[in-house]
Structure formats: structure tokens, C-alpha cells
């Protein structure tokens, strides 16, 4: 593990973080909601994700300040996003993310979303205020199996507890077909607390799967 450097994300990491978001969103599928729901090709969606990170809005899954990265031989090889929901009086992260998308993607994309929103609405899960929300967790394939996932999870929790010592829970929303990520979370003490399912037959054209899990870990307060 000594060859890995875990640190907070910096502006120069933003293109890599866009790749982390895309890889994490796709999960075990080839469907990326930033393309399927907003009618954008992946290359353009990637540029728009970069623009959203560059706005440096704190408190959501597209905030530079939410991310840590791992460096190996001077290059980023993992990215993980986490933030405390509603911390410091922030608006709900879903609203902040929606503001970023509304501002960045433009009217045509939102008009397209309007025609598709009914398909994905059953998989919208509210985030619980003042819990640590884990979203986007990606390690390059060649660095899997080296204990990095556990080190990253520990670092994410330590960082959050340093910021908010009364933190009691970590939550993660994850598609049910993301089996490897679910295994990592279970190994790290998460439990599945709720399942959300869509019976809309078109959902597989837009999202990686038709079922999402809410996973949760209760933190031990020392």
C-alpha cells in the first residue's frame, strides 16, 4: 500500500473525475444516464461533466470538494466521492446537482428529459440529512484486489468524522447489478436497508438496472 498516495482531489484531477463518474454511473452496463436521459453523446456528456466540476459547487456528487483520489506513480488511479448531506446549511444535494445540470446541459436536454422522467422516477431516492453520502467509487482494474478499497473507505469515513464528529451513518445508493461494488460495501460493514424497483419496461434503455439498493453503515462512535 505504500506506493499509493490518497489525497483530496485537485482541479487538475477533473478530467479523471469525469471518467470516474462515467465508469461508476455505467456500473456493469453500457448505459450512462447523462447520455440516455439528456440525449447527448458520451464525449459531449464528458465535457459537460467536466464543466460541472469546474463550477466548484460544494455539497453534492459533482463537487470537486467531495472527492479523494489515489495516485500511483504520479497518476490518478482511483476516485471516490462522498459528502455530508445538507452540511453547513447546504441545499439538498439533489437540488444542487439539478441546478448544475440545468445550467450546464441546456434547454434542449431538459426538454428531452421531460419526455423520459416518468421512466426513471421510481428510482429517485431521497438522501437523509446529515448522513455521509457515498457516490461514485472507481478503482482502475489493474489496482483491484490490493486492499485499496478498504483504505479508501476508511479515509472517506475519517475525513467526514474530522469535519463532523457527530456523524452517525454512511449511506450509498447503488444499482443491484453492481455486484462487485455491493460485495465491497458488505465487506466494509454496510447492510442493505431498502430496495427500490421500477417496473417500467423501458428502464433498461436508460439506466444500468431496474432496481436500486439503499445501503447503510452505522458508524461506531469512539
Amino acid at each position, binding site marked *: 500500500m505504500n506506493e499509493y498516495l490518497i489525497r483530496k482531489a485537485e482541479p487538475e484531477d477533473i478530467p479523471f473525475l469525469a471518467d470516474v463518474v462515467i465508469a461508476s454511473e455505467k456500473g456493469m452496463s453500457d448505459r450512462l444516464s447523462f447520455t440516455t436521459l439528456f440525449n447527448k453523446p458520451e464525449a459531449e456528456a464528458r465535457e459537460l461533466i467536466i464543466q460541472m466540476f469546474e*463550477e466548484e459547487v460544494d455539497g453534492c456528487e459533482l463537487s470537486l470538494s467531495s472527492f479523494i483520489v489515489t495516485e500511483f506513480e504520479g497518476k490518478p488511479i482511483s476516485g471516490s466521492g462522498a459528502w455530508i448531506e445538507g452540511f453547513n446549511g447546504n441545499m*439538498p444535494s439533489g437540488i444542487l446537482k*439539478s*441546478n448544475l445540470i*440545468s445550467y450546464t446541459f441546456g*434547454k434542449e436536454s431538459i426538454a428531452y*428529459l421531460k419526455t423520459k422522467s416518468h421512466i426513471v422516477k421510481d428510482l429517485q431516492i431521497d438522501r437523509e440529512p446529515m448522513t455521509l453520502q457515498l457516490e461514485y467509487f472507481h478503482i482502475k482494474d489493474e489496482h483491484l484486489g490490493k486492499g485499496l478499497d478498504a483504505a479508501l473507505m476508511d479515509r472517506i469515513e475519517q475525513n467526514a468524522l474530522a469535519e463532523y464528529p457527530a456523524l452517525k451513518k454512511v449511506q450509498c445508493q447503488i444499482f443491484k447489478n453492481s455486484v462487485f461494488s455491493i460485495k465491497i460495501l458488505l465487506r466494509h460493514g454496510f447492510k442493505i436497508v431498502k430496495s427500490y424497483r421500477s417496473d417500467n419496461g423501458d428502464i433498461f434503455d436508460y439506466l444500468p438496472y431496474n432496481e436500486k439498493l439503499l445501503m447503510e453503515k452505522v458508524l461506531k462512535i469512539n
Partner: protein
Amino acid sequence: MEKEEIVSRLTPVFRKVFADSTLVITDQLSALDVEKWDSLSHMLLIAEVENEFTIKFKLKDLNKMANVGDMIAIIESKL
């Protein structure tokens, strides 16, 4: 444009986006008060409000909108 006129034009927009024909908007109303006001419907709301008033919100405007009163004040400033 007077605040009353803004409210009278905003009300049908809110009712349409949240599919609630009885919704009454007040300055204090926020996403926490309306069950269907989630991240998806928020994007549709912003687009509909921009269309209604032929304006474009800046990102810093959007991130200052903690409730409908904030939204009305920003719309007022743009008209």
C-alpha cells in the same frame, strides 16, 4: 413586473410541474414541502420558469434559491 403578477404566473407553472391543481405557492415554500419536488422535477421546474418569463438563471442564482420567495426575488431582478 409586480410581485403579484409574478406569483400569478408562477402558480400554474408549479401546479403543472408537480401535477397538483391545488398547490398554493408562498414565499416559504421549498422542496422540503412538496412531495413531488425532487431532483428530476426540479430540473423541469427551472426550465418551465425560464420559459414562462423568458429568462435564463445563472448558476449562482439557482444555488441561492432556498425557497419560492428567493425565486420570485431573482425573477423580479431579471425583468
